[in-house]
Structure formats: C-alpha cells, structure tokens
C-alpha cells in the first residue's frame, strides 16, 4: 500500500513567496509579534546560511545585509494550505492533513490511473510548484516513513518496501521528534546516550528502550525502523476557493492592484482546474486603510473606548457571470473594468478573492445552431459598453406584469441558444400580449417611438378634444391637430404610493413637410399634457 507525503519546508516563508516570487533568490525572514517585540518565526535557506535563526529579534537581524523580512500572514498560510490540499486531492481522494505544511495521500490504486510511483511523485512536486510552493515529495509503503523521508530529503524520494530502515538511517534524530510534545526531554536523553541518527535509534534494544522511555519510546523506534502503520484520517474539506494577500504598504493605484489580482486569479484558476471545476461568481473583498482593528477587542491606549473593537472599512464587489468560465485573463479584465467604474476610494491593505465553484459548461455545440457571441468576449464587451453608457443602460429587457407605462426592467444579457428553444408567448398580463411571428407581413405592427423623457406640450382644446399642439422641446411638433382619437383612459396602482392615471390620444399633426402621428398623454393626477411618442 503506497503512501505519498508532500512537505513544504519553511511553510510560512513559502506562503509569502507565492505572491512575491521575486524574493525567492534573496534571504527572507518572516517576523511574528507586535512591534517592537517582533521575533523571527521562519527563515528560508539563504537566510539560514546568512546566520539568521528562528527566535532572533528584529533588532538583531536588521544588521544583516541583503536580508528581506516580512510579517507573518495567516491569511496567506491558509490559502497556501488550501492550495496544497487541492494539489493532493487532484491525485488521490484519500488525503490526510497531518500538519499545515504536511499532507499524506493514499496512493492505493492510483498507479493504474496515474502511472508508476516515481512518476506520481514527480507530478506531485510539479503540480505544487505550479501552485507556487516548492515541496518535498516522498513515497513509501507506510505513512510514517513517507513523512520522515519528505521532511528529511529534498526533492522527490521513493523508498521501496523493505528498504525503509536503510534509507532513513542517516536522518538526524531531531527529525524523529519534530512536532512531538516534550521533544526536548527525549532529545536530551538521546544525546546523552550518544544517539545522533535514526539508525542508532533503530539499533537500540526494544525492551530496555520501552522500559526507559515508555510506550512513546517504542513508537519512536518503530518509526525510525519504518515499521509504523496507521490508518489515514481522510479529510473532506468544503470546496472553498479563496486566495488572500496582506500588503506591507497600502496600495493606492489600480495598476499594481491589477498585477496582484492577476497572481491571485492564476492561483484560483489553477486550483479550480485541478478539480475540473469552473466558476460563475467572483467575490472581491478589499480591506481599506483608515481605522484599525484590535484582535483582542481592546483599544490600546484609549480608555474612552474600552473593549470595543473597530474594524477597517471594507469594500466588496461581486462579479456574476452568465456561464461557468475559467479564463484568468477574462476575469482580470472584468475586475479591472468593474474597479474602474467603482473605485474603492481608499488605499488597500488586504485583498481577498474567492470563486464559487461550479461544473464547467460542456463545450460541444450543435452543427446547425446559428453563430452566437463567445461568452468570454461577450462579457468583456458588455463590461466595456457599461463603462460607456452606464450599467443600467445595457442588457436585455424583461416586460413586467403591470399596465404601468414603461413596464420593463433591464437584466443581464445572456443569450441561451438551444435547438429546442421556443419563443415565449403570452406574458399573462392583459394588454401585454406578445405576438407570434408567422410568415410574411401579416402581423406587422405599427411601432411607437418613445420620447424619454416625455416632452411637455401645450394643447388647445375644443369641446374637450385637442385641436392645436405646441411643443417647446420639439419645435417641429407644432401645428393643427388634424385628427385625434381618444381618450383611452387607464390608471393603476392607486393602492400604492405611486398611483397613476392618464388619458391617451392618438393624434395626427400637420407639420412643415409631412403629417406626424403622435401619442398624446394627459396625466390626470397633475393635469399636464405630454407627448409620449410618435408612431413610425
């Protein structure tokens, strides 16, 4: 039964390097704590060679040349851990979260699907690298050996069954006790005995060891020999695809924000692709500068507000897509257009980007379907058009079930073409019947062109009928009313606050060069005469 282990050395550092890959070649130290008592929490290999170690204060390391330091980010560590899980779950459904930086997979049956064990191990390492994490991968016959090998050997390691003791022998005994409780006591005991590596631990006699160190000592010896076996506790994490980034300095321009969003989107799309998923909703949350946040609920140094926590202002935008998409460039462009139309208004200190996972849309189109716009291009075009005319001025429309004038609302344009589509018929509202197209000109409708807003007019009446009309806004519409038909009275919503009542007239007006047909409306509530539109 083969098991694989993915271990990310210096995990807090790697989590930060996912978003700042340029620092990988430099010495980097991760600090934790509140200033001025910050201490080094983790370092990378270059910093370790430079003499920086965990526990040193910021003051001590400031003198090191070429050393970069960042504050520890739990958000980014969570995102990195989630990415590691996604990576592991794309290879096996049985995955155990051994530690934030260690994942163990059960590879039983995976060789038939994914190939030989060395190939699986290399693919695991490559997939983790694609997600921005440089990980050690080890494959062995039991989980304990796989974990020790991943933590002890760099790169990819495959330990054949029966060779565990031999391969693990040279690893230091500190590795055996990593993460164990009271490990200093065991370490001191081993050092007093002259035990330096796992071979020495494995060579100790069983009974005297258990007499001196107890059951735990026996377990440690089995681990050193590669003889442990325990059942994995597989996890079933909720499908949460979220990437986060805390900024060292507040961000004020949209261009650098777009650069960071691009990185987060690439990671999100990689994680979604590894699960064969797409997304139909992107949620962007920005934490803005201004105000402050206290984790313990107290306001330091301000006795006027004891125990009251204040959070930074937040800015959220949600992008709803009509179809599942998985193109990071399209997402970036849509976010950019959206942020240009709705800027945050304050410097940004934290970025969270989440995607709602859905099944991807099938890509097979019918042979005889008419051409339609590509969804990705259409979304970008609609976003650009919305930037020109306004968000509520572009889209498809939906007629509402009412007799009120202008009885429609705009909605997102999402054409859905399928061979079995039928045109919608009656809306169910009296007077709102939708025609059905037959052949030829049998149902050609005299169209009305609406004036938005309606033009105010002055009307001369004779025996209750309009005889002359004059419009200040439309100077051409002035003249004798040759013919008037009406009034067609309608009213509604009198039970609401915004009731309406009107008389409509269809009129023919003698203009300069022709006769114009108009719809004239009298608002019965305020008595105004309005020109609503022209028949054309």
């Amino acid at each position, binding site marked *: 039964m083969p098991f694989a282990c993915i271990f990310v050395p210096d995990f807090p550092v790697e989590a930060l390097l996912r978003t700042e890959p340029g620092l990988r070649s430099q010495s980097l130290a991760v600090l934790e704590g509140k200033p001025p008592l910050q201490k080094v929490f983790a370092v990378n290999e270059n910093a370790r060679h430079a003499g920086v170690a965990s526990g040193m204060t910021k003051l001590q390391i400031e003198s090191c040349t070429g050393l970069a330091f960042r504050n520890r980010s739990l958000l980014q560590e969570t995102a990195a851990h989630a990415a590691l899980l996604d990576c592991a779950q794309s290879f096996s459904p049985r995955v155990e979260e051994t530690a934030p930086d260690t994942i163990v997979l059960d590879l039983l049956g995976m060789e038939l699907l994914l190939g030989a064990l060395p190939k699986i191990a290399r693919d695991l390492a490559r997939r983790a690298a694609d997600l921005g994490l440089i990980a050690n991968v080890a494959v062995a016959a039991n989980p304990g050996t796989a974990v020790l090998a991943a933590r002890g050997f760099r790169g990819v390691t495959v330990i054949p069954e029966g060779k565990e003791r031999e391969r693990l022998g040279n690893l230091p005994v500190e590795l055996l006790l990593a993460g164990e409780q009271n490990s200093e006591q065991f370490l001191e005991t081993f050092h007093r005995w002259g035990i330096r590596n796992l071979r020495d631990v494995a060579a100790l006699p069983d009974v005297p060891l258990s007499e001196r160190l107890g059951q735990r000592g026996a377990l440690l010896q089995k681990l050193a020999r590669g003889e442990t076996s325990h059942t994995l506790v597989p996890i079933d994490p909720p499908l949460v695809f979220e990437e986060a980034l805390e900024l060292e300095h507040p961000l004020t321009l949209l261009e650098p924000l777009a650069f960071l969003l691009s990185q987060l989107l690439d990671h999100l799309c990689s994680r979604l692709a590894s699960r064969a998923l797409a997304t139909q909703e992107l949620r962007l949350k920005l934490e803005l500068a201004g105000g402050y946040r206290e984790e313990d609920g107290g306001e330091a140094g301000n006795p006027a507000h004891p125990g009251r926590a204040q959070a930074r202002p937040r800015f959220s935008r949600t992008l709803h897509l009509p179809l599942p998409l998985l193109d990071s460039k399209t997402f970036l462009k849509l976010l950019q257009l959206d942020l240009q139309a709705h800027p945050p208004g304050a410097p940004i200190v934290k970025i969270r980007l989440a995607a709602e996972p859905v099944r991807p849309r099938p890509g097979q189109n019918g042979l005889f379907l008419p051409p339609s716009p590509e969804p990705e291009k259409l979304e970008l075009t609609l976003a650009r*058009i919305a930037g020109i005319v306004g968000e509520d001025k572009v889209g498809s429309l939906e007629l509402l079930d009412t007799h009120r004038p202008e009885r429609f609302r705009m909605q997102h344009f999402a054409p859905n073409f399928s061979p079995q589509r039928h045109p919608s018929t009656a809306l169910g509202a009296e007077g709102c019947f939708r025609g059905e197209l037959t052949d030829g*000109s049998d*149902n050609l409708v005299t169209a009305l062109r609406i004036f938005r807003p309606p033009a105010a007019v002055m009307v001369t009446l004779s025996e209750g009928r309009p005889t002359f009309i004059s419009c200040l806004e439309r100077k051409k519409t002035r003249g004798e009313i040759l013919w008037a038909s009406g009034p067609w009275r309608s009213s509604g919503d009198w039970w609401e606050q915004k009731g309406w009542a009107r008389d409509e007239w269809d009129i023919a007006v003698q203009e300069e060069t022709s*006769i114009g047909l108009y719809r004239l409306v009298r608002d019965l509530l305020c008595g105004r005469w309005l020109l609503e539109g022209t028949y*054309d």
Partner: protein
Amino acid sequence: MPSLPLFSNPAARRPLASAPFPASASGGRLAALPQLAEVTPASQLTVRPAPEMVPSGVREIDALTGGLPRGSLTEVCGPVSSGRTSLLLAVLASATQRQEACALVDVSDAFDPVSAAMAAVNFESLLWVRCGVQQTTAVRRKNKAHGASRACDNVEQALRVTDLLLQSGGFGLVTIDLGDVPLKFARRIPLTSWFRFQRAIERTPTVLFVVTQSPCAQTCAALLLKMQAGKKLSAFGSQPSEKLLAHTELLNDLQVETEILRLRMPRKPAQSVTAIFSTQTVRAG
C-alpha cells in the same frame, strides 16, 4: 519600350509572355493590340460570391430586394411616421426568431418594449444599448458652451458601442437607430466610421442595419431604402373635416411606401423599385 496589356481576360487564360507585342510604337498601337478586344471590365476582375440574403420580416421588401445582405450595411431613411421603426421591429423579430443574437444601439433611447413584444421580438436574444449618459449640470453647461449637445454625445457613444459590438463578433444583426438624431449631427458622422463598420462586418454573417432620417452612410451602404408614408396618410391633410377617419381606419392598415435608392446585389430584371406594405396598430385594452 513596348507596353504590356493592363488587363488580362481570366476566361481566355492566355499567359502574358505569349501575348503579342506591337511591332511599332506609333499612336495606333493600342487599337492594333488584338487582346484589347477581350478586355474584361475592372468590376469583374475579382469574382466575389454573392452575399447571403436573410429575410427582413416584410414579404414585400423581401420580394423587392431579395432580403437583407449579410456582411453588408443596410440603411433605411425616412421622415417621422414613415414606417422606419415598424420595419426595424420586423427585422429584429425575424432575426431573433432565427435564434440569432441581435443588438440594438438606441441612440435616442426611443425603443418601445411593448411595440416590440407585439411584433414578436424575442427579448432574450436582443441586447439593448441605451445611449445617453446622465450629465451633471456642470458638464451640460460646458458642452453647451462648446456648441455640443446631448444628441452629439449620444452619437459619439453610439459609434464607440457599435465598434465594440462589431469587434466582438457573433451577432447576427446589429442595428443603429439614428431616427431621432437631428440631421446636422447625423451627417457629422465621418465617412471613415462607416467604412470601418463595413470592413468589420465584411465576410461575417452580421447584418448592420441603420435607421436614419436621411442617407448618411453614402457608398458604404450596400442597400439603401427610402421610406415614406403611404397615400392614405399623405393625402389625409387635404381631406375635408367631415370625412375624418376613425381610429381603426387611420392607424390600421397604415401604408408604407419603400423605394430602393441603392442596391449592389444583382436583382431579377424588370422589377419595380418600390414596394408598399401595411402595418397594424395594436392597442392595449
């Protein structure tokens, strides 16, 4: 130096190298060239496939023009109450019923959804772009000071939106409604814009349909129709008051006359250039 013939007849397929050259370079040289008798006119040098025609939704216009050409610009012009918008709705209804994605660039925000519903336009397939950004008072004063007006801004928006729609592609029909735009602003649309639109839809299945008060696209329009109210309305003003028509007599069977002003596609010979069709007014309640 003897001159080579400028034109070659593709039907004859005679290589230029074997073309005989005149012995002398005198003035009668051109007339003496035997291959000039087979000169092919320049308009026939490249054989272009005839564009695919789609129904306009009006039988009489389809009989007149053969339909609307794909990959070309069709312009419809006419004054108020000449039937332009009725034709526009018929074209939209026909295209949406063919399940093609359609776009309407409404420069004056004059589209009536109720009329469109009566005309059987399928709104799920129609993208409606309503031009006209809400201007602040300061911007409006500034534009007025510079002689610009809201109509001018709307036209600029419409041109930019049309560019985006045509570049995006995939639309079976893109319509631009300039019907209420004053002539002085509509005529200011540069010819280069119309050329750009024409090039964008060339060799695509997109029909670009433009409604104007008077012709604007000039030579870019492959089909130009002029519309006017039929005799029933135009003669209405001269009728004595005792013979006033009832509502159903005037607005029902409202006649529209259509005349072809330009058509680049080949037509069947001996056909009329005008057509008359009628529209019905559907009143709610």
